[in-house]
């Protein structure tokens, strides 16, 4: 409607604090910082391993610093929140039909969780 005088409301920078669902969404998005933190840590660990035993030991020693322990715990919490909320959303994106019937959403989420547990178990087993 051209020429019509309308009033346009502005969206403030803190729009995500007004509704719980928006706050949860932004929290989920922010957990990507935790993912980036762990990824960088893994890259540094790989570099330390490539530089030899001494470098590796020094890196592991640096990880025992209280600040790094706290940062890693925060990152772990963030990644768990990210993974759990993501797996819970998976049934929305994946609609699988077996014959005439849709596979119930909770089974799709369960499949994701099982995959997560199995892959984690393989990693733990290979490290032990």
């Amino acid at each position: 409607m051209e020429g019509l005088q309308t009033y346009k409301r502005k969206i403030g920078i803190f729009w995500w604090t007004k509704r719980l669902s928006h706050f949860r969404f932004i929290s989920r998005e922010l957990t990507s910082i935790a993912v980036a933190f762990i990824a960088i840590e893994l890259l540094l660990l790989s570099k330390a391993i490539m530089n030899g035993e001494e470098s590796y030991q020094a890196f592991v020693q640096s990880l025992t610093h209280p600040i790094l322990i706290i940062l890693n715990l925060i990152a772990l919490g963030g990644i768990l929140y990210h993974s759990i909320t993501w797996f819970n959303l998976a049934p929305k994106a994946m609609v699988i039909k077996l014959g005439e019937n849709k596979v119930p959403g909770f089974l799709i989420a369960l499949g994701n969780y099982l995959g997560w547990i199995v892959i984690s178990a393989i990693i733990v087993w290979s490290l032990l």
Partner: protein
Amino acid sequence: MKDLITLNVFRYQPEKSKEPTYQEYEIPYHKDWVILDALNYIKDQIDGSLTYRWSCRMGVCGSCGMMVNGKPVLTCATFLESYTPGPIRIEPLENFPVIRDLVIDMSDFLEKLKKVKPWIIRKDVGSEDREYLQTPSQLADYKQYSMCINCMLCYAACPVYGLEPEFIGPAALALAQRYNMDSRDEGKNQRMKALSHDTGIWQCTFVGDCSAVCPKNVDPAGAIQRYKVEGASNWWKTLLLPYASKD
């Protein structure tokens, strides 16, 4: 003495002021009244200048969507009782320009709706000598998405649409999926242009509020994510099998 409840109503009267104001109305409280009944009471008994849209009064036409205490709802399906003791804040749907009081300008939505071609597209249009049969299972594939009443609550709930107004938005994308998933339709590739565009599905960050507020359980967020999965797998197919025929 009758029970009373207070409504704080958003008023925008461009001939009086460039800025909106909130007007307080005290009305009788009835347990069986919906918000729309309260607005109709104000219009009939207190202030005839209050402007808002409504029509069917039974959750079918999709015209009476407003923000009630900050949440987009159909006012014909939302009871005063849920907000006692009040006051109740009534505002026009968020993310849309306001024409007057509680009436928003929906032209942007209507333009976007056209872009996704929400109708059945077939090569053999005009041949009336056959029926296009469909099994109950094929109907079930898209029926949920066909329940949309264009009430635009999902647009008011979507922060992406608010922040990036060029985003096609939840209802239009869900309607595109409604036709894409219809076994009688052959227009998927034609819709792909609008859906896969920068302003299409990839702008959706999966907040999920569009599905939460939908009065018809259409689940636009689900429709968009399904299309993302399909779009991504088609991209891989095109990359790996560039000479494969497209449907």
